[in-house]
Protein backbone atom coordinates (compact mmCIF):
# COMPACT_ATOMS: atom_id res chain seq x y z
CA UNK A 1 0.00 0.00 0.00
CA UNK A 2 2.87 2.37 0.62
CA UNK A 3 4.14 1.36 -2.86
CA UNK A 4 1.17 3.22 -4.26
CA UNK A 5 1.87 6.38 -2.24
CA UNK A 6 5.54 6.24 -3.23
CA UNK A 7 4.59 5.94 -6.87
CA UNK A 8 2.28 8.96 -6.60
CA UNK A 9 5.05 11.01 -4.99
CA UNK A 10 7.59 9.88 -7.59
CA UNK A 11 5.19 10.70 -10.41
CA UNK A 12 4.66 14.15 -8.91
CA UNK A 13 8.42 14.73 -8.68
CA UNK A 14 8.99 13.56 -12.26
CA UNK A 15 6.27 15.77 -13.73
CA UNK A 16 7.12 18.75 -11.53
CA UNK A 17 10.87 18.67 -12.19
CA UNK A 18 10.51 18.77 -15.94
CA UNK A 19 10.22 21.83 -18.14
CA UNK A 20 9.36 19.69 -21.17
CA UNK A 21 6.48 17.34 -21.79
CA UNK A 22 7.18 13.81 -20.53
CA UNK A 23 5.71 10.99 -22.59
CA UNK A 24 3.90 8.06 -21.08
CA UNK A 25 6.63 5.65 -22.18
CA UNK A 26 9.27 7.85 -20.53
CA UNK A 27 7.19 7.84 -17.33
CA UNK A 28 6.93 4.06 -17.39
CA UNK A 29 10.70 3.61 -17.72
CA UNK A 30 11.89 6.35 -15.38
CA UNK A 31 9.30 6.54 -12.56
CA UNK A 32 9.69 3.87 -9.91
CA UNK A 33 6.65 1.73 -9.33
CA UNK A 34 5.30 1.21 -12.85
CA UNK A 35 5.69 -2.42 -13.72
CA UNK A 36 3.85 -5.32 -15.34
CA UNK A 37 2.05 -5.63 -18.65
CA UNK A 38 1.63 -2.44 -20.74
CA UNK A 39 -2.16 -2.45 -20.25
CA UNK A 40 -1.75 -2.82 -16.48
CA UNK A 41 0.64 0.14 -16.43
CA UNK A 42 -1.79 2.17 -18.54
CA UNK A 43 -4.60 1.52 -16.07
CA UNK A 44 -2.30 2.32 -13.17
CA UNK A 45 -1.32 5.62 -14.74
CA UNK A 46 -4.92 6.62 -15.42
CA UNK A 47 -5.86 5.94 -11.80
CA UNK A 48 -2.81 7.83 -10.54
CA UNK A 49 -3.74 10.87 -12.64
CA UNK A 50 -7.24 10.82 -11.14
CA UNK A 51 -5.89 10.46 -7.62
CA UNK A 52 -3.53 13.41 -8.07
CA UNK A 53 -6.34 15.49 -9.54
CA UNK A 54 -8.41 14.72 -6.45
CA UNK A 55 -5.56 16.15 -4.40
CA UNK A 56 -5.80 19.31 -6.47
CA UNK A 57 -2.65 18.57 -8.46
CA UNK A 58 -3.32 19.43 -12.07
CA UNK A 59 -1.52 17.40 -14.72
CA UNK A 60 -1.35 19.18 -18.06
CA UNK A 61 -1.46 17.28 -21.30
CA UNK A 62 0.28 18.56 -24.40
CA UNK A 63 2.36 17.50 -27.34
CA UNK A 64 5.82 18.39 -28.52
CA UNK A 65 4.73 19.60 -31.88
CA UNK A 66 1.16 20.72 -32.32
CA UNK A 67 1.41 20.16 -36.08
CA UNK A 68 1.97 16.47 -35.72
CA UNK A 69 -0.19 13.95 -33.96
CA UNK A 70 2.74 12.45 -32.11
CA UNK A 71 2.66 10.98 -28.64
CA UNK A 72 1.26 13.36 -26.03
CA UNK A 73 3.28 14.37 -23.00
CA UNK A 74 2.47 15.32 -19.40
CA UNK A 75 3.73 17.84 -16.85
CA UNK A 76 2.77 19.70 -13.68
CA UNK A 77 3.31 23.44 -13.72
CA UNK A 78 5.13 24.58 -10.57
CA UNK A 79 2.99 27.75 -10.55
CA UNK A 80 -0.21 25.72 -10.35
CA UNK A 81 1.20 23.22 -7.83
CA UNK A 82 2.54 25.83 -5.48
CA UNK A 83 0.50 27.99 -3.12
CA UNK A 84 0.87 31.74 -3.37
CA UNK A 85 1.20 32.60 0.29
CA UNK A 86 4.34 34.71 0.33
CA UNK A 87 2.70 37.78 1.83
CA UNK A 88 1.20 36.20 4.99
CA UNK A 89 2.32 38.09 8.11
CA UNK A 90 2.98 36.59 11.58
CA UNK A 91 -0.19 38.14 12.97
CA UNK A 92 -2.24 36.78 10.07
CA UNK A 93 -0.76 33.34 10.67
CA UNK A 94 -1.92 33.51 14.31
CA UNK A 95 -5.43 34.43 13.16
CA UNK A 96 -5.47 31.47 10.75
CA UNK A 97 -4.21 29.22 13.51
CA UNK A 98 -7.04 30.38 15.78
CA UNK A 99 -9.53 29.99 12.91
CA UNK A 100 -8.57 26.35 12.40
CA UNK A 101 -9.21 25.63 16.10
CA UNK A 102 -12.90 26.26 15.44
CA UNK A 103 -13.00 22.87 13.71
CA UNK A 104 -11.80 20.76 16.61
CA UNK A 105 -14.13 17.79 16.74
CA UNK A 106 -16.08 19.16 13.77
CA UNK A 107 -16.39 17.89 10.24
CA UNK A 108 -13.65 19.91 8.49
CA UNK A 109 -11.06 19.25 11.19
CA UNK A 110 -8.61 17.38 8.96
CA UNK A 111 -8.83 20.04 6.26
CA UNK A 112 -8.27 22.76 8.84
CA UNK A 113 -5.26 20.90 10.17
CA UNK A 114 -3.70 20.31 6.74
CA UNK A 115 -4.27 23.96 5.81
CA UNK A 116 -2.48 25.03 8.97
CA UNK A 117 0.45 22.69 8.31
CA UNK A 118 0.88 24.21 4.85
CA UNK A 119 0.87 27.72 6.25
CA UNK A 120 3.29 26.84 9.00
CA UNK A 121 5.62 25.49 6.29
CA UNK A 122 6.28 29.14 5.42
CA UNK A 123 8.54 29.04 8.45
CA UNK A 124 7.36 32.36 9.86
CA UNK A 125 6.66 32.85 13.56
CA UNK A 126 3.17 33.39 14.89
CA UNK A 127 2.31 36.40 16.95
CA UNK A 128 -0.33 35.19 19.40
CA UNK A 129 0.28 38.01 21.87
CA UNK A 130 -1.33 40.49 19.49
CA UNK A 131 -4.72 38.78 19.31
CA UNK A 132 -7.34 38.50 22.06
CA UNK A 133 -8.19 35.21 23.81
CA UNK A 134 -11.05 33.72 21.81
CA UNK A 135 -12.32 30.21 21.22
CA UNK A 136 -14.33 30.11 18.01
CA UNK A 137 -16.46 27.00 17.54
CA UNK A 138 -17.85 25.72 14.25
CA UNK A 139 -20.04 22.96 15.70
CA UNK A 140 -20.89 20.92 12.71
CA UNK A 141 -20.23 17.23 12.72
CA UNK A 142 -22.60 16.48 9.86
CA UNK A 143 -20.70 14.69 7.06
CA UNK A 144 -23.18 16.16 4.59
CA UNK A 145 -21.52 19.52 5.10
CA UNK A 146 -18.17 18.24 3.77
CA UNK A 147 -20.01 16.60 0.84
CA UNK A 148 -21.72 19.90 0.03
CA UNK A 149 -18.43 21.84 0.16
CA UNK A 150 -16.82 19.34 -2.23
CA UNK A 151 -19.81 19.51 -4.57
CA UNK A 152 -19.61 23.31 -4.62
CA UNK A 153 -15.87 23.16 -5.34
CA UNK A 154 -16.51 20.87 -8.29
CA UNK A 155 -19.74 22.58 -9.35
CA UNK A 156 -21.68 19.33 -9.18
CA UNK A 157 -25.45 18.99 -8.85
CA UNK A 158 -26.54 17.34 -5.60
CA UNK A 159 -29.69 15.56 -4.48
CA UNK A 160 -30.96 14.76 -1.00
CA UNK A 161 -34.16 14.22 0.95
CA UNK A 162 -35.37 17.21 2.87
CA UNK A 163 -37.95 17.49 5.65
CA UNK A 164 -40.54 19.92 4.40
CA UNK A 165 -42.82 22.09 6.50
CA UNK A 166 -45.17 19.15 7.16
CA UNK A 167 -42.22 17.01 8.24
CA UNK A 168 -42.53 14.93 5.08
CA UNK A 169 -39.28 13.83 3.49
CA UNK A 170 -39.12 15.12 -0.11
CA UNK A 171 -36.37 14.70 -2.69
CA UNK A 172 -34.64 17.93 -3.73
CA UNK A 173 -32.16 18.51 -6.55
CA UNK A 174 -30.04 21.66 -6.42
CA UNK A 175 -26.99 23.35 -7.86
CA UNK A 176 -25.26 24.28 -4.61
CA UNK A 177 -23.87 27.84 -4.58
CA UNK A 178 -22.72 28.45 -1.04
CA UNK A 179 -22.74 27.39 2.60
CA UNK A 180 -22.63 29.04 5.98
CA UNK A 181 -23.93 29.36 9.50
CA UNK A 182 -26.12 31.75 11.39
CA UNK A 183 -27.78 31.56 14.79
CA UNK A 184 -26.32 28.12 15.44
CA UNK A 185 -27.76 26.53 12.29
CA UNK A 186 -25.89 25.57 9.12
CA UNK A 187 -27.30 26.33 5.70
CA UNK A 188 -26.72 25.51 2.05
CA UNK A 189 -27.89 27.94 -0.61
CA UNK A 190 -28.51 26.79 -4.15
CA UNK A 191 -30.63 26.85 -7.23
CA UNK A 192 -33.50 24.40 -6.77
CA UNK A 193 -33.81 22.72 -10.17
CA UNK A 194 -37.50 21.80 -9.72
CA UNK A 195 -38.63 25.09 -8.23
CA UNK A 196 -36.28 27.03 -10.54
CA UNK A 197 -35.37 29.48 -7.80
CA UNK A 198 -32.67 30.19 -5.25
CA UNK A 199 -33.46 28.39 -2.00
CA UNK A 200 -31.88 28.09 1.43
CA UNK A 201 -31.72 24.67 3.12
CA UNK A 202 -30.95 23.93 6.75
CA UNK A 203 -28.50 21.06 7.09
CA UNK A 204 -30.21 19.56 10.15
CA UNK A 205 -33.36 19.15 8.04
CA UNK A 206 -31.58 16.91 5.53
CA UNK A 207 -33.08 13.44 5.78
CA UNK A 208 -30.55 11.50 3.71
CA UNK A 209 -26.96 11.54 2.61
CA UNK A 210 -26.04 14.06 -0.06
CA UNK A 211 -25.49 12.43 -3.44
CA UNK A 212 -23.82 14.08 -6.39
CA UNK A 213 -25.19 13.57 -9.85
CA UNK A 214 -23.91 14.32 -13.34
CA UNK A 215 -20.57 15.79 -14.28
CA UNK A 216 -18.30 18.30 -12.60
CA UNK A 217 -18.42 21.90 -13.86
CA UNK A 218 -22.08 21.51 -14.81
CA UNK A 219 -23.15 25.00 -13.74
CA UNK A 220 -21.83 28.40 -12.78
CA UNK A 221 -22.34 30.27 -9.56
CA UNK A 222 -23.87 33.64 -10.52
CA UNK A 223 -21.45 36.58 -10.20
CA UNK A 224 -23.82 38.38 -7.88
CA UNK A 225 -24.34 35.50 -5.45
CA UNK A 226 -23.06 36.33 -1.97
CA UNK A 227 -23.66 33.87 0.88
CA UNK A 228 -23.76 36.64 3.50
CA UNK A 229 -26.72 38.15 1.61
CA UNK A 230 -28.45 34.80 1.24
CA UNK A 231 -28.27 34.44 5.02
CA UNK A 232 -29.22 37.99 5.88
CA UNK A 233 -32.56 38.53 7.57
CA UNK A 234 -34.92 40.78 5.61
CA UNK A 235 -35.60 44.09 7.27
CA UNK A 236 -38.56 44.03 9.63
CA UNK A 237 -40.79 46.57 8.03
CA UNK A 238 -43.96 46.18 10.12
CA UNK A 239 -44.51 47.23 13.68
CA UNK A 240 -46.87 45.96 16.39
CA UNK A 241 -48.05 47.52 19.64
CA UNK A 242 -47.76 45.04 22.49
CA UNK A 243 -48.54 45.48 26.19
CA UNK A 244 -46.39 43.59 28.67
CA UNK A 245 -46.55 43.34 32.45
CA UNK A 246 -44.07 45.37 34.49
CA UNK A 247 -40.69 43.57 34.77
CA UNK A 248 -41.87 40.76 32.54
CA UNK A 249 -41.41 39.61 28.93
CA UNK A 250 -37.71 40.47 28.69
CA UNK A 251 -37.36 38.72 25.34
CA UNK A 252 -39.91 41.18 23.88
CA UNK A 253 -38.48 44.23 25.65
CA UNK A 254 -35.03 43.78 24.11
CA UNK A 255 -36.57 43.83 20.63
CA UNK A 256 -38.72 46.89 21.21
CA UNK A 257 -38.03 50.13 19.36
CA UNK A 258 -40.02 52.21 21.84
CA UNK A 259 -40.86 51.44 25.47
CA UNK A 260 -43.56 53.35 27.32
CA UNK A 261 -43.61 52.39 31.00
CA UNK A 262 -46.97 52.41 32.77
CA UNK A 263 -48.07 51.41 36.28
CA UNK A 264 -48.93 47.81 35.66
CA UNK A 265 -48.49 47.54 31.89
CA UNK A 266 -45.70 48.71 29.61
CA UNK A 267 -46.40 49.45 25.93
CA UNK A 268 -43.81 48.25 23.41
CA UNK A 269 -43.40 48.82 19.68
CA UNK A 270 -42.06 45.64 18.17
CA UNK A 271 -40.86 45.38 14.60
CA UNK A 272 -41.70 42.11 12.88
CA UNK A 273 -41.55 40.33 9.56
CA UNK A 274 -44.20 37.62 9.70
CA UNK A 275 -47.38 38.07 11.70
CA UNK A 276 -47.47 34.38 12.72
CA UNK A 277 -44.02 34.71 14.30
CA UNK A 278 -45.06 37.82 16.17
CA UNK A 279 -48.14 36.04 17.53
CA UNK A 280 -46.05 33.02 18.61
CA UNK A 281 -43.51 35.21 20.36
CA UNK A 282 -46.19 37.10 22.27
CA UNK A 283 -48.09 33.92 23.20
CA UNK A 284 -44.86 32.49 24.70
CA UNK A 285 -45.29 35.02 27.49
CA UNK A 286 -48.77 33.81 28.42
CA UNK A 287 -50.80 36.29 30.43
CA UNK A 288 -47.80 38.61 30.77
CA UNK A 289 -48.29 40.02 27.26
CA UNK A 290 -51.01 40.83 24.73
CA UNK A 291 -51.25 42.45 21.30
CA UNK A 292 -52.96 45.84 20.84
CA UNK A 293 -52.35 46.30 17.12
CA UNK A 294 -52.42 45.52 14.25
CA UNK A 295 -55.98 44.21 14.34
CA UNK A 296 -55.17 41.15 12.24
CA UNK A 297 -52.45 40.00 14.67
CA UNK A 298 -54.77 40.65 17.59
CA UNK A 299 -57.46 38.56 15.92
CA UNK A 300 -54.97 35.71 15.24
CA UNK A 301 -53.92 35.71 18.89
CA UNK A 302 -57.55 35.55 20.06
CA UNK A 303 -58.28 32.74 17.60
CA UNK A 304 -55.20 30.78 18.73
CA UNK A 305 -55.99 31.23 22.43
CA UNK A 306 -59.58 30.16 21.92
CA UNK A 307 -58.37 27.05 20.13
CA UNK A 308 -55.81 26.25 22.87
CA UNK A 309 -58.35 26.78 25.66
CA UNK A 310 -60.91 24.67 23.85
CA UNK A 311 -58.47 21.84 23.07
CA UNK A 312 -57.22 21.62 26.64
CA UNK A 313 -60.50 22.35 28.43
Amino acid at each position, binding site marked *: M*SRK*SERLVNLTI*ALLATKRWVTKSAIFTSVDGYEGEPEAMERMFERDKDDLRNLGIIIEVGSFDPLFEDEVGYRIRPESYQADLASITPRELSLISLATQAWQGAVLNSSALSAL*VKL*KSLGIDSDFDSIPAMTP*VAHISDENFAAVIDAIAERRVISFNYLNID*FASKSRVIEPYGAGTKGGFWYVAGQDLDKKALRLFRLDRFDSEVKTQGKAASYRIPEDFVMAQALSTPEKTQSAQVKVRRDKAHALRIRATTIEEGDEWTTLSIPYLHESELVSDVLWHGDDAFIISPDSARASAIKALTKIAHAHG
Partner: protein
Amino acid sequence: MVKKTTPTEKAARMLDLVPFISSHQGIATTELAAEFGISVEELLSDLNSLWMCGDNRFDLIDLQFESGYVTIRNAQTLNRIRSLSQQEIVAVLLGLDLIGKDLPEDREDLKGDIEDLRTKLGSEIARIVDASPAQDSQINSLISQALEGKRRLAITYYSPTDDQVSIREITPLQLTTSENRDFLIAFCESAGGQRTFRVDRIQSATLLESPASQIPTSSTDDIRTVATVKISENIRRCRESLGAFISGAGPTVQVSTYSDGWLSRTVMSAAGAMEVTSSAKIREGIAILAGKTLDLYR
Protein backbone atom coordinates in the same frame (compact mmCIF):
# COMPACT_ATOMS: atom_id res chain seq x y z
CA MET B 1 -10.98 7.07 16.51
CA VAL B 2 -8.02 6.97 14.11
CA LYS B 3 -9.24 6.82 10.56
CA LYS B 4 -7.45 4.50 8.15
CA THR B 5 -5.35 6.51 5.74
CA THR B 6 -5.75 5.83 2.03
CA PRO B 7 -2.61 5.64 -0.16
CA THR B 8 -3.65 8.94 -1.75
CA GLU B 9 -3.98 10.67 1.62
CA LYS B 10 -0.61 9.27 2.61
CA ALA B 11 0.93 10.60 -0.62
CA ALA B 12 -0.57 14.03 0.10
CA ARG B 13 0.94 14.02 3.57
CA MET B 14 4.34 12.96 2.20
CA LEU B 15 4.22 15.89 -0.23
CA ASP B 16 3.32 18.28 2.61
CA LEU B 17 5.98 16.92 4.94
CA VAL B 18 8.81 18.05 2.63
CA PRO B 19 8.31 21.85 2.85
CA PHE B 20 7.35 21.60 6.53
CA ILE B 21 10.55 19.77 7.50
CA SER B 22 12.58 22.12 5.28
CA SER B 23 11.41 25.12 7.28
CA HIS B 24 11.67 23.25 10.60
CA GLN B 25 14.98 21.39 10.20
CA GLY B 26 15.81 19.30 13.26
CA ILE B 27 12.20 19.10 14.52
CA ALA B 28 11.52 16.20 16.92
CA THR B 29 9.50 13.32 15.45
CA THR B 30 6.98 13.60 18.30
CA GLU B 31 6.40 17.28 17.59
CA LEU B 32 6.19 16.71 13.84
CA ALA B 33 3.62 13.93 14.31
CA ALA B 34 1.55 16.23 16.51
CA GLU B 35 1.63 19.04 13.91
CA PHE B 36 0.27 16.63 11.29
CA GLY B 37 -2.25 15.10 13.70
CA ILE B 38 -0.87 11.56 13.28
CA SER B 39 0.87 9.01 15.50
CA VAL B 40 4.67 8.72 15.58
CA GLU B 41 4.35 5.26 13.95
CA GLU B 42 2.41 6.72 11.04
CA LEU B 43 4.96 9.50 10.71
CA LEU B 44 7.88 7.06 10.64
CA SER B 45 6.07 5.04 7.98
CA ASP B 46 5.59 8.24 5.93
CA LEU B 47 9.26 9.19 6.35
CA ASN B 48 10.42 5.70 5.38
CA SER B 49 8.33 5.88 2.21
CA LEU B 50 9.55 9.39 1.43
CA TRP B 51 13.13 8.26 1.85
CA MET B 52 12.58 5.87 -1.06
CA CYS B 53 11.44 8.66 -3.37
CA GLY B 54 13.36 10.92 -5.68
CA ASP B 55 14.05 12.00 -9.23
CA ASN B 56 15.48 8.59 -9.99
CA ARG B 57 16.97 5.80 -7.96
CA PHE B 58 20.41 7.48 -7.86
CA ASP B 59 19.12 10.82 -6.67
CA LEU B 60 16.88 10.12 -3.68
CA ILE B 61 15.60 12.53 -1.06
CA ASP B 62 18.10 12.66 1.80
CA LEU B 63 16.15 12.27 5.05
CA GLN B 64 17.67 11.77 8.50
CA PHE B 65 15.40 10.80 11.37
CA GLU B 66 16.98 7.89 13.29
CA SER B 67 18.02 10.23 16.11
CA GLY B 68 14.42 11.24 16.79
CA TYR B 69 14.99 14.58 15.04
CA VAL B 70 14.22 15.09 11.37
CA THR B 71 16.29 16.85 8.74
CA ILE B 72 15.89 16.87 4.96
CA ARG B 73 18.25 17.57 2.04
CA ASN B 74 18.09 17.13 -1.71
CA ALA B 75 14.36 17.70 -2.07
CA GLN B 76 14.36 20.89 -4.19
CA THR B 77 11.61 19.69 -6.52
CA LEU B 78 9.13 19.03 -3.75
CA ASN B 79 10.20 21.89 -1.53
CA ARG B 80 7.09 23.84 -2.43
CA ILE B 81 3.98 24.43 -0.35
CA ARG B 82 1.06 22.86 -2.17
CA SER B 83 -1.88 25.04 -3.10
CA LEU B 84 -4.66 24.93 -0.55
CA SER B 85 -7.63 22.76 -1.53
CA GLN B 86 -11.08 24.35 -1.67
CA GLN B 87 -12.11 22.45 1.45
CA GLU B 88 -9.04 23.76 3.29
CA ILE B 89 -9.77 27.31 2.19
CA VAL B 90 -13.42 26.97 3.22
CA ALA B 91 -12.39 25.69 6.67
CA VAL B 92 -10.02 28.63 7.21
CA LEU B 93 -12.38 31.28 5.85
CA LEU B 94 -15.34 30.12 7.95
CA GLY B 95 -13.12 30.08 11.04
CA LEU B 96 -11.86 33.58 10.27
CA ASP B 97 -15.43 34.74 9.79
CA LEU B 98 -16.41 33.42 13.23
CA ILE B 99 -13.50 35.33 14.77
CA GLY B 100 -14.00 38.50 12.74
CA LYS B 101 -17.62 38.96 13.80
CA ASP B 102 -16.72 38.54 17.47
CA LEU B 103 -13.71 40.85 17.66
CA PRO B 104 -13.90 43.79 20.07
CA GLU B 105 -14.87 47.08 18.43
CA ASP B 106 -11.41 48.58 18.85
CA ARG B 107 -9.59 45.84 16.94
CA GLU B 108 -9.93 47.39 13.51
CA ASP B 109 -6.37 46.21 12.83
CA LEU B 110 -7.35 42.54 13.09
CA LYS B 111 -10.54 43.10 11.12
CA GLY B 112 -8.31 44.54 8.39
CA ASP B 113 -6.05 41.49 8.57
CA ILE B 114 -9.05 39.20 8.11
CA GLU B 115 -10.23 41.22 5.10
CA ASP B 116 -6.72 40.90 3.59
CA LEU B 117 -6.67 37.18 4.25
CA ARG B 118 -10.01 36.74 2.48
CA THR B 119 -8.40 38.25 -0.61
CA LYS B 120 -5.13 36.34 -0.25
CA LEU B 121 -6.83 32.98 0.25
CA GLY B 122 -9.39 33.50 -2.48
CA SER B 123 -12.12 36.10 -2.68
CA GLU B 124 -14.11 33.85 -5.03
CA ILE B 125 -14.55 31.35 -2.22
CA ALA B 126 -14.93 34.03 0.46
CA ARG B 127 -18.01 35.22 -1.45
CA ILE B 128 -19.83 31.89 -1.21
CA VAL B 129 -19.27 31.09 2.46
CA ASP B 130 -20.37 33.02 5.53
CA ALA B 131 -20.41 32.35 9.24
CA SER B 132 -21.86 34.24 12.17
CA PRO B 133 -21.11 32.86 15.60
CA ALA B 134 -24.10 31.58 17.58
CA GLN B 135 -22.34 32.45 20.78
CA ASP B 136 -19.67 34.85 21.95
CA SER B 137 -16.29 33.19 21.43
CA GLN B 138 -14.77 35.31 24.20
CA ILE B 139 -17.29 33.79 26.62
CA ASN B 140 -16.26 30.35 25.33
CA SER B 141 -12.68 31.25 26.04
CA LEU B 142 -13.55 32.31 29.62
CA ILE B 143 -15.43 29.03 30.19
CA SER B 144 -12.38 27.05 29.02
CA GLN B 145 -10.15 29.06 31.36
CA ALA B 146 -12.50 28.45 34.28
CA LEU B 147 -12.64 24.72 33.54
CA GLU B 148 -8.86 24.43 33.20
CA GLY B 149 -7.98 26.64 36.15
CA LYS B 150 -10.84 25.24 38.31
CA ARG B 151 -12.17 28.72 38.96
CA ARG B 152 -15.59 30.28 39.37
CA LEU B 153 -17.42 32.47 36.91
CA ALA B 154 -19.90 35.24 37.49
CA ILE B 155 -22.45 35.16 34.65
CA THR B 156 -25.46 37.10 33.49
CA TYR B 157 -27.92 34.57 32.18
CA TYR B 158 -31.19 34.94 30.37
CA SER B 159 -33.75 32.20 30.79
CA PRO B 160 -36.73 32.41 28.40
CA THR B 161 -38.67 29.83 30.44
CA ASP B 162 -38.41 31.86 33.63
CA ASP B 163 -38.46 35.13 31.67
CA GLN B 164 -35.63 36.34 33.85
CA VAL B 165 -32.18 37.79 33.58
CA SER B 166 -30.17 36.60 36.55
CA ILE B 167 -26.66 37.17 37.84
CA ARG B 168 -25.19 33.94 39.11
CA GLU B 169 -21.94 32.63 40.50
CA ILE B 170 -21.17 29.26 38.99
CA THR B 171 -18.47 26.59 39.05
CA PRO B 172 -18.22 25.14 35.53
CA LEU B 173 -18.09 21.33 35.56
CA GLN B 174 -18.45 20.21 31.97
CA LEU B 175 -19.11 21.54 28.50
CA THR B 176 -21.34 19.39 26.31
CA THR B 177 -22.80 19.73 22.85
CA SER B 178 -26.27 18.81 21.76
CA GLU B 179 -27.99 19.63 18.47
CA ASN B 180 -25.15 21.92 17.37
CA ARG B 181 -25.31 23.96 20.58
CA ASP B 182 -23.02 24.20 23.57
CA PHE B 183 -24.38 23.55 27.04
CA LEU B 184 -22.46 24.23 30.22
CA ILE B 185 -23.12 21.99 33.20
CA ALA B 186 -22.15 23.88 36.32
CA PHE B 187 -22.69 24.04 40.03
CA CYS B 188 -24.72 27.15 40.64
CA GLU B 189 -23.87 28.84 43.94
CA SER B 190 -26.99 30.97 43.75
CA ALA B 191 -29.32 27.98 43.31
CA GLY B 192 -27.20 25.68 45.47
CA GLY B 193 -27.31 22.88 42.94
CA GLN B 194 -26.23 21.62 39.57
CA ARG B 195 -27.69 23.45 36.60
CA THR B 196 -27.35 23.34 32.82
CA PHE B 197 -26.87 26.62 30.94
CA ARG B 198 -27.14 27.21 27.23
CA VAL B 199 -23.91 28.98 26.35
CA ASP B 200 -25.52 31.30 23.79
CA ARG B 201 -27.79 32.64 26.54
CA ILE B 202 -24.90 33.68 28.73
CA GLN B 203 -24.90 37.41 28.12
CA SER B 204 -21.66 38.21 29.92
CA ALA B 205 -19.11 36.40 32.04
CA THR B 206 -16.30 37.37 34.41
CA LEU B 207 -13.60 35.04 35.69
CA LEU B 208 -13.44 35.18 39.48
CA GLU B 209 -10.34 34.81 41.61
CA SER B 210 -12.09 32.50 44.06
CA PRO B 211 -11.43 28.83 43.35
CA ALA B 212 -14.12 26.33 42.39
CA SER B 213 -16.24 25.29 45.34
CA GLN B 214 -16.40 21.78 46.74
CA ILE B 215 -19.30 20.34 44.86
CA PRO B 216 -21.71 18.38 47.04
CA THR B 217 -22.09 14.94 45.47
CA SER B 218 -25.80 14.62 46.12
CA SER B 219 -27.18 15.85 42.84
CA THR B 220 -30.42 17.75 42.83
CA ASP B 221 -32.23 14.98 41.03
CA ASP B 222 -34.62 16.90 38.87
CA ILE B 223 -37.96 15.27 38.35
CA ARG B 224 -38.74 14.74 34.73
CA THR B 225 -42.27 15.06 33.51
CA VAL B 226 -43.30 12.99 30.54
CA ALA B 227 -46.09 14.42 28.44
CA THR B 228 -47.75 13.36 25.21
CA VAL B 229 -48.20 16.06 22.60
CA LYS B 230 -50.29 15.86 19.46
CA ILE B 231 -49.23 18.14 16.60
CA SER B 232 -51.91 19.11 14.09
CA GLU B 233 -50.07 21.54 11.75
CA ASN B 234 -46.61 23.01 11.12
CA ILE B 235 -45.22 19.63 12.17
CA ARG B 236 -41.61 20.47 11.34
CA ARG B 237 -41.60 23.73 13.26
CA CYS B 238 -43.40 22.23 16.24
CA ARG B 239 -41.03 19.30 16.43
CA GLU B 240 -38.05 21.63 16.19
CA SER B 241 -39.40 23.82 18.97
CA LEU B 242 -39.70 20.74 21.20
CA GLY B 243 -36.03 20.21 20.42
CA ALA B 244 -34.01 17.38 21.83
CA PHE B 245 -36.62 16.30 24.32
CA ILE B 246 -38.92 14.31 22.08
CA SER B 247 -39.34 10.75 20.94
CA GLY B 248 -41.78 9.38 18.40
CA ALA B 249 -41.63 9.74 14.65
CA GLY B 250 -45.07 11.01 13.68
CA PRO B 251 -47.32 13.87 14.72
CA THR B 252 -47.81 12.39 18.21
CA VAL B 253 -44.67 12.64 20.33
CA GLN B 254 -43.53 11.97 23.87
CA VAL B 255 -41.84 14.93 25.49
CA SER B 256 -39.76 14.56 28.59
CA THR B 257 -38.87 17.77 30.33
CA TYR B 258 -37.64 19.14 33.62
CA SER B 259 -39.99 22.07 33.38
CA ASP B 260 -43.77 22.12 32.98
CA GLY B 261 -43.45 25.88 32.53
CA TRP B 262 -41.28 25.43 29.46
CA LEU B 263 -43.71 22.94 27.95
CA SER B 264 -46.76 25.11 28.49
CA ARG B 265 -44.98 28.16 26.99
CA THR B 266 -43.97 26.06 23.97
CA VAL B 267 -47.56 24.85 23.50
CA MET B 268 -48.90 28.42 23.85
CA SER B 269 -46.49 29.78 21.26
CA ALA B 270 -47.46 27.02 18.82
CA ALA B 271 -50.70 29.01 18.55
CA GLY B 272 -53.03 26.02 18.53
CA ALA B 273 -50.88 23.63 16.46
CA MET B 274 -50.04 21.51 19.53
CA GLU B 275 -52.25 19.79 22.04
CA VAL B 276 -51.03 18.12 25.20
CA THR B 277 -53.06 14.90 25.56
CA SER B 278 -51.47 13.84 28.83
CA SER B 279 -50.94 14.52 31.65
CA ALA B 280 -54.23 15.98 32.87
CA LYS B 281 -52.35 18.32 35.19
CA ILE B 282 -50.42 19.98 32.36
CA ARG B 283 -53.56 20.14 30.23
CA GLU B 284 -55.39 21.93 32.99
CA GLY B 285 -52.52 24.37 33.52
CA ILE B 286 -52.50 25.28 29.82
CA ALA B 287 -56.29 25.67 29.70
CA ILE B 288 -56.20 28.07 32.66
CA LEU B 289 -53.28 30.07 31.21
CA ALA B 290 -54.99 30.34 27.80
CA GLY B 291 -58.20 31.46 29.53
CA LYS B 292 -56.43 34.11 31.59
CA THR B 293 -54.59 35.38 28.53
CA LEU B 294 -57.83 35.49 26.57
CA ASP B 295 -59.33 37.68 29.31
CA LEU B 296 -56.66 40.30 28.55
CA TYR B 297 -58.20 40.73 25.09
CA ARG B 298 -61.72 41.31 26.41
